[in-house]
């Protein structure tokens, strides 16, 4: 089956190797025998996308991305309505909300796809992260490089963090999820490092494409081991920094 990814603002909004999230999903789908097309651009056609992705940028890059995406809000809403997955990571998450207030006090109207609001701070809070997940599920590891507080999330992606700064407090709830709209402030190739999270996205993408969702999804060589090493290292060495 042919599956289409749309990578929004791939140059402005890929500061920490975010493009690799799509590389890994594509490899997984190809291993399952699907054909994947990646459409990349600042204002591409969203009407055929099964997955719409945007990664992290600089604070300025994020504002440019916001301006570029504003005329496409209806396209994004339509995509969500027909079950396409919208995944925004890093500070791309913030543009989905109601507003972003920058350090100069300027309020940037968000895309309004989620209820939360964000305030940027002069303090950057880069940190390794372990996110808690429901019992029986694998925790999520990664990194965040944020200088903002996001308030008003009622449906976080992760209920709490074992390590790292949540939406608005240390170890607090992190990210946002509602149906097929998913966001996290975790930066970089978060789906590369976390096969379980990649599978969660993959299931939604396959469902949207009308493809069969098998019980077992592919894991790329070394992916699980890389996750386990990072989790072990973070728990043994990073605990004091949590």
């Amino acid at each position, binding site marked *: 089956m042919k599956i289409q990814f749309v990578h929004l603002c791939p140059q402005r909004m890929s500061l920490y*190797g975010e493009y690799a999230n799509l590389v890994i999903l594509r490899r997984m789908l190809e291993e399952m025998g699907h054909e994947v097309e990646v459409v990349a651009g600042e204002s591409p056609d969203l009407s055929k996308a099964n997955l719409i992705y945007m990664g992290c940028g600089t604070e300025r890059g994020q504002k440019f991305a916001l301006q570029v995406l504003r005329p496409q809000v209806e396209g994004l809403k339509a995509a969500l309505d027909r079950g396409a997955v919208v995944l925004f990571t890093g500070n791309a998450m913030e543009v989905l909300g109601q507003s972003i207030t920058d350090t100069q006090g300027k309020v940037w109207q968000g895309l309004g796809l989620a209820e939360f609001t964000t305030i940027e701070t002069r303090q950057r809070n880069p940190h390794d992260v372990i996110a808690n997940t429901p019992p029986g599920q694998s925790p999520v590891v990664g990194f965040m490089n944020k200088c903002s507080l996001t308030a008003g999330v009622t449906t976080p992606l992760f209920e709490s963090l074992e390590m790292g700064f949540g939406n608005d407090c240390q170890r607090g709830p992190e990210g946002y999820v509602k149906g097929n709209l998913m966001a996290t402030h975790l930066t970089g190739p978060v789906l*590369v490092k976390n096969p379980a999270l990649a599978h969660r996205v993959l299931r939604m993408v396959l469902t949207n494409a009308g493809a069969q969702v098998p019980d077992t999804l592919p894991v790329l060589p070394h992916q699980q081991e890389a996750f386990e090493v990072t989790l072990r290292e973070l728990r043994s060495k990073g605990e004091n920094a949590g």
Partner: protein
Amino acid sequence: MRRFFAIILCKLMRLVGKLLGRGSSLPGQFALKVCPDVLGRVKLPPYVIAVTGSNGKTSTVEMIAAILKAAGKNVVYNAEGSNQIEGVTTLILSQCDLSGQVRGDVLLLESDERYARHTFHWFHPTHFVITNLYRDQLTRNGHPQWVYEAILPAIHPSTTLVLNADDPLVACFAHQGNPVKWFGLEAWPGATKEHHGMYDDGAFCPACGGKMEYSLYHYNHIGHYRCTQCGHHRPHPDFAVTELDLEAGKLVLDGDTPIQLAFRSIYNVYNILAAWSACRMIGVDKHTAAGVINNYILKNGRMVRFTLGQHKGTLLTSKHENSVAYDTNLRYIRDTHTPCTVLVVVDAISRKYFTGETSWLWDIDFDLLSAPHVQRVVLSGRYVHDLALRFECSAVDPDKVVLSAGISQAVEFLERSGDEDLYVVTCFSDRDKVLDRVELEEN
């Protein structure tokens, strides 16, 4: 009086510290407690040159110091690379007489890019060399634009900026209205029309966000650029490498000064250019500067030659969390055209702090190792699986990739097999784990 005590305390602690073989930050830290504004109370030499940027700080400072010494100048500089305010305070106070006069003709400082504003709160450089701004240690630095914003408050209006014209973000420092001198590399056979690398930080203008156009790229986003929207463009350099043949190891400075390169890397070219610019600006003649730069061999050990079994080995220090540094060394290996094996080690991501962040591996252009003369790529260290997964998604033939989590096992494996050239690509944090197990070549 507090200044006097701070100077005495610093000198004493430095003396004791040297005897005990301790680092150079602590005396300065204590002196700053005794007299927080001590750096504003000392009398500095007529020239204060600071060097900052993502890459090349230490090398550029060393080269400037060597040239100035050859020109007969008395140079005070932080050879130990302690580049934050405490280390700088130690340096300055230990070179002061008791009246607070710093000895020497030139004070030369390597300055950490994020903390320069603290150091230059109390005094300011006469010349501020900014080499480049890349994605470097983003787990601490955030991103290059954030570092740019952090450097801005360190720039005093009267400081003359010595800027890399070929880096579009560095060129934005000129918008502060300071006096500026530019250095840059003119067109050369290795420059490309297209961008190479896994990401393009020159795609959009750092001044206005508009689309940028490049007439040529030297490497990554360093090149000759112009913004299609606001016109931000590469300025005409005051100091330039006017000819460059990297393969032959030759360049020409300012149209008339030929230089032979001991190390044929584009980094070395820019370090030379930055050092040449700073020294020419404070009156060193071309002949003296060229005499030092010719065949200049860096003593900082970033390139180490060794023997392992039948292999002739070269360690190319490539900072982890710095994809441009990796790319430069991988390009060097690609351009050797001699059969070789490459050992890549990622064990401790930093020697200064802990992080498990490996996203920077995806910013490195490992496809460069798909060149046919690269016979094997051996991956090693704690993060060997992250490396292996990254290579799995690269153009390197999987049959050429060998995994060995243990570094000593990787070294033993190489010792037993093959006689091709061996390149080790890793960071300061991990290199001794290899170097301790090989036979180093005498300098």
